[in-house]
């Protein structure tokens, strides 16, 4: 089980929920469970087998690119956060 934090732009796929709990021992498994019922949701997250370039994914605040990517393990206490890439706030 893992908690996934959904950004505003994707909440149309989660009935407006900001936090969704799904099954999965890794980020990849959790995301496949998350988007299983909705092809459009899947297309927003995945580009083939890979995550799309315009989203950043964090497990306990750490970008999974610098952990084990989609194989990064997640426990019941962990939060997976999806955040869209943005141009820097105060740049």
């Amino acid at each position, binding site marked *: 089980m893992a908690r996934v934090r959904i*950004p*505003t*732009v*994707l909440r149309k796929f989660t009935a407006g929920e900001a936090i969704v709990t799904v099954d999965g021992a890794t980020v990849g498994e959790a995301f496949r469970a998350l988007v299983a019922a909705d092809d459009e949701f899947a297309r*927003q997250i995945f580009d083939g087998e890979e995550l*799309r*370039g*315009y*989203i*950043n994914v*964090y497990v306990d*605040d*750490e*970008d999974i*690119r*610098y952990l084990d990517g989609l194989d990064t393990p997640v426990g019941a206490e962990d939060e997976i*956060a999806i*955040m*869209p*890439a*943005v*141009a*820097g*706030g*105060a*740049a």
Partner: protein
Amino acid sequence: MRFADVTEAIGNTPLVGLPHLSPEGYHIHLKLEGHNPTGSVKDRVAKYLIDQAERFGQLAPGQRVLEPTSGNTGIALAAICRVKGYPLTCVMPENTSEERKQLLTMFGAELVYSPAEQGSNGAVRMAQQLASDDPNVYMPFQYGNAANPLAHYETTAPEILADLPEVTAFVAGLGTGGTVTGVGRRLKSVNPQIKIYAAEPEYGDLVYGLRNLDEGYVPEVLDVDVLDGRIKVDSRSALEWTRRLAEEEGIFAGVSTGASLAVAVRVCGRLPEGADIVALSPDGGWKYLSTGAYAPGDLDELADRISATLWA
């Protein structure tokens, strides 16, 4: 120190230890970029953007400069363009703080506002449109201009190495990605073992107010391979560390500094004991007073109330 004009006074900022906030056995140092002439690290970037454009003949005398910027880069460009005789247009989200609008106006910049709900990505899109509609303007475009990381490669990083040759890790916030890319490349060219961490501000929903993910924006100057970790920091944590910095170390910094400090403290645990970590403080707190970030009160309530405008 004596300089011919204000553009010559950019850089050579102090590197200050944090004896009270560094975890036991570690040494965190802050590079105080608020000591630059217009008060932020962006003086370095703006100087390089204009100098490089002049050098490569992209900018003619008196030509208008146009840039998407919600603050520091605009203020730095405005001062430099004024000294060098270029008119400037800044495109920024309309919810940019009043202090910044007043500073820009005083330096003679023209302001164009993009919709607040589109955040900084909206300002980038609008500036790109305006620049393509008017061939007479020059857009340096800090998000995609190699002069941005080059400023840090050639100035910020050498200053750190001169002041602290034993540096083991560097932390900076992610805006354009220019700081971590430029400093990171230079430090790793000297010692590949030096770790580079990015602090990613977790903006309020307003900044993420995109209609779909295709409107996301990954800055071209960011080299993700130079990083050893990218850690997000929420508004509450950034505020907490920013306030502790004032309360315990006597340093009044902007909220991005708190975010980088939070990451510096977090990564100490994965560095060898005795490690020297440099965190970059992009600016002082002055321009953010009106956000309420420094007002007395409950931190949770404060973070909730101002997270939408804090990073704008």
